[in-house]
């Protein structure tokens, strides 16, 4: 299954969840937030949120800015 993660295609196992993706990316659970197809997925739904073919996923954090 291919999803677009931060604008880049990424091959993911079938039945992947948001939680699985975050783990695959090597990220912790703090300082990041996720939206799928422009909808926020709150952290307590990460385990249950299944990704589908073609999903557009944004994984964001914080950088310096004014």
């Amino acid at each position, binding site marked *: 299954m291919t999803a677009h993660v931060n604008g880049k295609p990424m091959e993911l196992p079938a039945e992947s969840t948001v939680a699985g993706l975050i783990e695959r990316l090597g990220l912790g659970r703090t300082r990041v937030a996720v939206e799928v197809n422009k909808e926020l997925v709150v952290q307590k739904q990460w385990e249950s949120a299944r990704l589908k073919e073609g999903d557009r996923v944004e994984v964001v954090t*914080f950088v310096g*800015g004014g």
Partner: protein
Amino acid sequence: MPYAPFKLGKHELRSRLFLGTGKYPDLEVMRKALDASGCHVVTVAVRRVEIGQKHAGQILDAIDPERYLILPNTAGCFSAEDAVRSARLAREALAVDWVKLEVLADKKTLLPDPLGTLEACRTLVKEGFTVLCYASDDPVMARRIEDAGAASVMPAGSPIGSGQGVLNPNNIRIILETVKVPVIVDAGVGTASDVCIAMELGAEGVLLNTGVALARDPVAMARAMSLACEAGYLAARSGRIARKLYATASSPWTGLIEPAKRPDEVAGE
């Protein structure tokens, strides 16, 4: 501490100076500059995690959570929709309910898009956000933003990063007379006197970034900004004298010694 208590959203702030976290030479300089500025609120931007980057949000390591409040911003958003999405993501990741809302019109001027700003402001207020709303220095727009439910109006002194200072102090004055929510002058600060002027006009606070981050000595400049903010705050509350065209002597005219010369006659004296 010269400042009277200043409440914004649910936070009682100990400083009137707000600092951005972009463009510092490195995180250690930023940490020292934040320290020297005495600021309480620092703003950070929402961006994609770099794939492969294991340690997300490193900027936050340099911002002591015991000491600073983190205000996420929607810098870089050019539509209400993108700004609202960024604000939601930031709230989720940081567990804060406030946001510095920026909806920009174009990359060259970085001026706010008034329609997008209002739309995003209304949406975020409805969703329970405390919205600090970046705006131009247009007094009518400031009123509209207040009507949309913003907790603070943040007029630009001049374009972001331009270092031009407060270009239209009369507009800031009118905004201050017009809106009841706190006015925080945001953007355009080049040096300490710009902060002082904004505060003397009666602004509740000033937010700046580039003026410190890109100064040759960011830490010293941060301290200068802090002093200027306090100076302007105190001056604004101290009842400055009226401006007069002619001089008024500070020393008495009586008791002078026998003069060799009398003052020149001035017509109309």
